[in-house]
């Protein structure tokens, strides 16, 4: 029976949990509770099996091979590309470039588009909630080009403060680079609004979607982003596979990044012509089996439904925030409004260092992350040296949150705080 659009289905967590073999174990004599999904997600058995199946039936190097296995491998590789194009709202497959991950995708842009388009005195705009991946390449590029790096500041609850946006994004701005969702604060940024500001001033917009694509339905075209990037491993797929979407017109004008096989058309000792997009950007043998298995991860997510995933995470985040805020000494970073945030929950305890929290929770079988989360400038803005971060995904449920909260209560007692 077809579902009505406005009727969302509760996702069946118990059955989903069963799909993830790694979750079925005890860590330090406790049930494993995995809450480090913003760093990387676990893999369902269908994705694990897809690797094995591909190696057993279809493995060969892709492109230019004139044998059956090369054709199978190439088909699988290109099928995933079409699948990705569809998954992010229906772009052209040739607008999808494979990279090793989000970090490499952003470096690719800095070294190609950035190298050609950023001149002395130009402005690059980022935000104060960027991961080092979408920060360091732009700091270095702006230094190299004598360009000006500007920042969109944050409100007190960790959202973008757009009050003075017209002074920040100006006619000198060539690039606005920002995350869709913060890996520390969980804040979801209003991408359409930002691209609107940027395009009116003639700037190009790059969106780091590493934390958003795994958790909600994304329509890259509607977002207005010129470049949009994310990583497979944060959405049930393998490591070493990243996606860079770029508008065809921009990609065609860009120079290649890595030089070598596959990215060329004709090679002479004194003259080389480039292959067409996307191959122009894909020198060398890529992570073929990873790409093939990513297709299975996408199908798995589609079967659950991205809107259902978003709803599940909204419900669970709301539940978690309510419970965490009842704990003594605990403070949550980022917006509390559930419409404006995702399931990345950073918190601090006024008495206990995040590394002690992490070690304590690990002893109870609970995996969270502690540290600066590759966002040192943001930590300075928040005036914290580090935070603890619990981040949710489809296999987490209220029991996980209950156990996290009980462990945090016991922890305060353990360290002598009540």
């Amino acid at each position, binding site marked *: 029976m077809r579902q009505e659009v406005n009727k969302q289905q509760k996702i069946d967590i118990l059955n989903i949990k069963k799909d993830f073999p790694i979750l079925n174990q005890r860590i*330090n*004599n406790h049930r494993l509770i995995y809450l480090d999904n913003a760093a990387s997600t676990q893999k369902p058995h269908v994705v694990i099996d897809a690797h094995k199946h591909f190696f057993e039936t279809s493995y060969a190097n892709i492109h230019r091979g004139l044998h059956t296995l090369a054709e199978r491998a190439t088909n699988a590789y290109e099928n995933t590309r079409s699948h990705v194009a569809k998954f992010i709202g229906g772009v052209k497959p040739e607008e999808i470039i494979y990279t090793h991950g989000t970090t490499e995708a952003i470096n690719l842009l800095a070294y190609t588009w950035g190298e050609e388009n950023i001149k002395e005195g130009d402005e690059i705009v980022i935000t104060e909630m960027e991961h080092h991946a979408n920060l360091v390449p732009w700091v270095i590029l702006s230094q190299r080009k004598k360009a000006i790096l500007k920042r969109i500041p944050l409100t007190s609850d960790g959202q973008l403060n757009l009050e003075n946006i017209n002074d920040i994004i100006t006619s000198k701005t060539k690039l606005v680079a920002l995350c869709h969702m913060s890996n520390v604060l969980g804040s979801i940024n209003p991408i359409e609004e930002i691209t609107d500001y940027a395009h009116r001033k003639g700037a190009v917009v790059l969106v780091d979607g590493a934390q958003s694509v795994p958790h909600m339905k994304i329509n890259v075209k509607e977002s207005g982003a010129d470049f949009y990037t994310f990583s497979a491993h944060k959405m049930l797929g393998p490591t070493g596979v990243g996606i860079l979407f770029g508008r065809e017109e921009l990609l065609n004008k860009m120079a290649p990044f890595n030089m070598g096989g596959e990215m060329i058309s004709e090679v002479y000792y004194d003259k080389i012509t480039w292959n067409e997009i996307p191959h122009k950007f894909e020198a060398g043998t890529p992570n073929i089996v990873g790409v093939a298995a990513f297709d299975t991860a996408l199908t798995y997510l589609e079967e659950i439904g991205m809107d259902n995933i978003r709803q599940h995470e909204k419900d669970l985040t709301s539940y978690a925030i309510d419970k965490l805020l009842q704990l003594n000494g605990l403070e949550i970073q980022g917006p509390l409004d559930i419409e404006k945030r995702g399931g990345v929950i950073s918190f601090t305890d006024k008495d206990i260092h*995040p590394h002690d929290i992490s070690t*304590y929770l690990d*002893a109870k079988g609970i995996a969270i992350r502690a540290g600066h989360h590759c966002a040192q400038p943001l930590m300075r803005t928040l005036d914290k*040296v580090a935070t603890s971060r619990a981040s949710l995904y489809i296999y987490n449920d209220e029991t996980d949150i209950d156990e996290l909260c009980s462990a945090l209560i016991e922890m305060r007692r353990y360290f*002598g705080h009540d």
Partner: protein
Amino acid sequence: MTDPLDEIYREIILDHYRAPRGKKPLEKFDVSSNGHNPSCGDDIDLHLLMDNGTVKDINVNCKGCAISVASGSMLAEYIKGKPLNEVKKIADVVKKMLKGEDFDLSEELADMELGDIDSLKGVRQFPVRIKCALLAWMTLIEGLKNYEDGKRAQNPTTTEKNGE
């Protein structure tokens, strides 16, 4: 199965963490040294008042995790009143112990005993936390080196590797 928490946070460590020794600031001091681990934010200020080759008084001001605070507190307790050569010896032994280097305790320390410091051994099983336990001791070693060379430290001491 034993609780891994009891390995790292032994009762002695928790005791030092809850009530750190050497907190009282010194009006005068001869040795001053700062240690800082940027990744965890652990920060330690160490001041020693020397008297005739002996540590007359010590102030340790450590902000950070339980391990670094406890380690700093044990340092304060242990070296107060000790002659400089013994202080250097114990710092070296703790460094070797935490880094897992081979050493013969009886040979290195002669008739000295590790006392509470022995409990830091458990941290070795938590490789990412070794730097926390080491910070106070490396800061002490650096401070004494500068003191003996008559120099001022240029940068804080760190026990983190780059990029952590």
